[in-house]
């Protein structure tokens, strides 16, 4: 059955592509979802944090390379840059802006984060200019892997084949563990479920909120940093990311961590199969999946319908 065999291999290749894409999308979407869960703010500026994370990682990496650092150091640099961006920008944004918006209308919160997004976009251009920035040392250092394809082989980069899905899986596992089995994680869950009740139980909701936003910002930055070796960072990269992240978050259900992973996987695989089977639908597939899910489950795949409080 050569037809079946060849198409089976094609499906396999599409799966590999989809997995790598899903991993990159998940990294950004999960931070957005975490922040929404605790703050109830759909943070449009999350896209800017992604872009700044990418730019910061690339700049640090290029600086280290200029000092003669070995290429493997690029990988920890990506991580360090994300933490740096999260720790520096997260508390500032949360304290100065979002905390003041806490009890305002959702539409106002959305507008404020959109304004912040625009400001950060311009700031990005001031700092990094408009020329594409690339730091691909880690990707080149890891090299390629030849995946068998019938009598042929298809080269994949080891970075996309192993590092991206690996980091995404590790992030999911760590988040799930922390939220379920640690005191801090349980406090985050408590604030997510019922802020007032959590406060009544003695939880410092403000501190939890700041911590969560910082982690969310770092995750967005990590998404950008991990993407940096594979893409050209240019103005506007944050805008396209945030739109796709919204699709993942809406599909998953707001505030859902595991849901974000599944939604990213669905969207990633859907997109890569579309490229293989019907490329003209590639762009709409993520949004078609979102609409299909929301038609049947308006609260998203893992979302819980909220009862209205009187």
């Amino acid at each position, binding site marked *: 059955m050569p037809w079946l065999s060849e198409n089976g291999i094609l499906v396999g290749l*599409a799966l590999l592509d989809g997995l790598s894409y899903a991993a990159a999308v998940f990294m950004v979407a999960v931070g957005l979802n975490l922040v929404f869960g605790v703050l109830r703010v759909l943070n449009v500026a999350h896209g800017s944090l992604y872009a700044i994370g990418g730019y910061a990682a690339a700049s640090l990496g290029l600086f280290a390379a200029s000092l003669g650092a070995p290429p493997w150091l690029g990988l920890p640099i990506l991580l360090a840059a994300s933490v740096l961006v999260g720790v520096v920008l997260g508390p500032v944004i949360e304290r100065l802006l979002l905390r003041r918006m806490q009890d305002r209308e959702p539409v106002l919160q959305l507008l404020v984060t959109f304004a912040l997004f625009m400001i950060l976009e311009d700031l990005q251009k001031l700092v990094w200019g408009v020329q594409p920035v690339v730091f691909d040392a880690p990707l*080149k250092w890891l090299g390629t892997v030849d995946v068998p394809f019938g009598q042929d082989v298809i080269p994949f980069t080891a970075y996309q084949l192993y590092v991206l899905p690996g980091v995404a899986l590790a992030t999911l596992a760590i988040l799930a563990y922390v939220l379920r089995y640690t005191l801090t994680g349980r406090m985050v869950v408590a604030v997510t479920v019922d802020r007032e009740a959590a406060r009544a139980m003695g939880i410092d909701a403000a501190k939890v909120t700041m911590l969560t936003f910082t982690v969310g910002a770092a995750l967005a930055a990590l998404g950008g940093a991990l993407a940096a070796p*594979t893409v*050209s960072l*240019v*103005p*506007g990269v944050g805008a396209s990311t945030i739109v796709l992240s919204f699709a993942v978050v809406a599909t998953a259900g707001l505030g859902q961590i595991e849901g974000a992973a599944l939604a990213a996987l669905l969207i990633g695989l859907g*997109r890569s199969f579309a490229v293989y089977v019907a490329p003209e639908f590639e762009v709409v597939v993520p949004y078609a999946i979102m609409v299909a899910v929301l038609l049947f489950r308006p609260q998203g795949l893992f979302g819980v319908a909220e009862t209205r409080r009187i």
Partner: protein
Amino acid sequence: MAGTGRAGMLTRREALVGAGAAGASLMLPGGSPFAQGAKPAELKVGIATYLSGPASVFGVPGRQTAEMLFDEINAAGGIAGVKVRPIFVDEGPGVDHVVGEYRRLVQSEGVHLIFAAISSADCIACAPLADELKRPTLLWDCGTQRIFEDNRYSYAFRTQANATPEILAALLYLLKVKPDFKSIAVINQDYAWGRDSWDIFRTAMNTLKPGVKVSAELFPRFGATDFSTEITRVLALRPDVVLSTSWGGDLDALIRQASDRKLFERSAFVMPLAESSLQRVGKALPAGHIVGARGDHWFLHPSPADPERLKRFSDSYRAKYNAWPIYPCFHMAQAVSAMRAGIEKAVAAKNGGWPTDAELAAAFKGLEFPSPTASVRIREDGQGLENQLIGTTLHSDKYPFPVLTDMIVFPAESVTTPVGQKSADWLKTLTPDMVGKLPQAQAFKS
């Protein structure tokens, strides 16, 4: 004195009529300081370019070139004794924004000329406005061939070529250097340029070399940063040729990712707009692939009309911005050169008097002006005739990025749709023997 009741005094009726006429002239759309042919204190030029979004990698070099050249003009005393001032507007927010800005530039800022735009959609929207507001407009960097094939304008002129010669030249080059290719895949941006340029390429290819198998037609989102899936698909299909008319950050990412995945080793790439990416992607782009300059722009042009002029332009840009000029820089230089030549022609026609808007617009018709590499002539339909340079990438020790070799400079007339014809029809009348008549290729000289 006719019209006055008493010497030096207006009647009430005459005053009302006069005031009405003055008011009406102010209300006229596009009322301009040029309407009466008065010499302005300064020449205000509205320039639409991308200052935000992914396309700013492209629009900002255009703005920088304008700033550099306007400074040079002013340092030399201006154009016909008038200093020039650019007013930049951003194309980033989209067509509606650009249309609003165009009106604002004319009606509030009182600009004398407009350079618009990079996006084809913006150009299509602005060309009718030029006629409506009667403001001379130079389409400085837009590609769509449809503007002057579908309409006629009195105030809009294109100071460069359009998609048809830019894409046809790349195909002819491919047919010359790799005549035996049997299959092709396309990876283009999913918007008007990506789709239209593929239509032009495919139509001409079906005419000149029928029977080529189209292995895949892939149109990733405009502004996409990840092409892994498209690359896997093309790697598996192994087409002889991969065409991409993409540009900007998208093309940079595609080149880098294709290089990382060894796609350049399996298929020959044809990238008619890649001159603008060479410096950014560096040696990630291997030797032996076909690159176009969207015009005859290349700071290492093998036979420029005025080598000193090209060197001066390239060196000035490099000294100021630490990069060699890319084709939007050359296109901006052409618009500035056309503006200067047009005004000087119109002023000379009035024996030193300042032209009205209509007289200035008329001066652009049939105008021939120098570009940094050759010269451009604006035809009677408003379309610029510009040569096309296509070459093959080569790695040289002298530059940290690929240079071009085996360059063919296509004469503008040989690849441009004649006046009055539509590209879609004209391309079907081409004959394969035109490949044999191409000019001699010129090697890279260090």
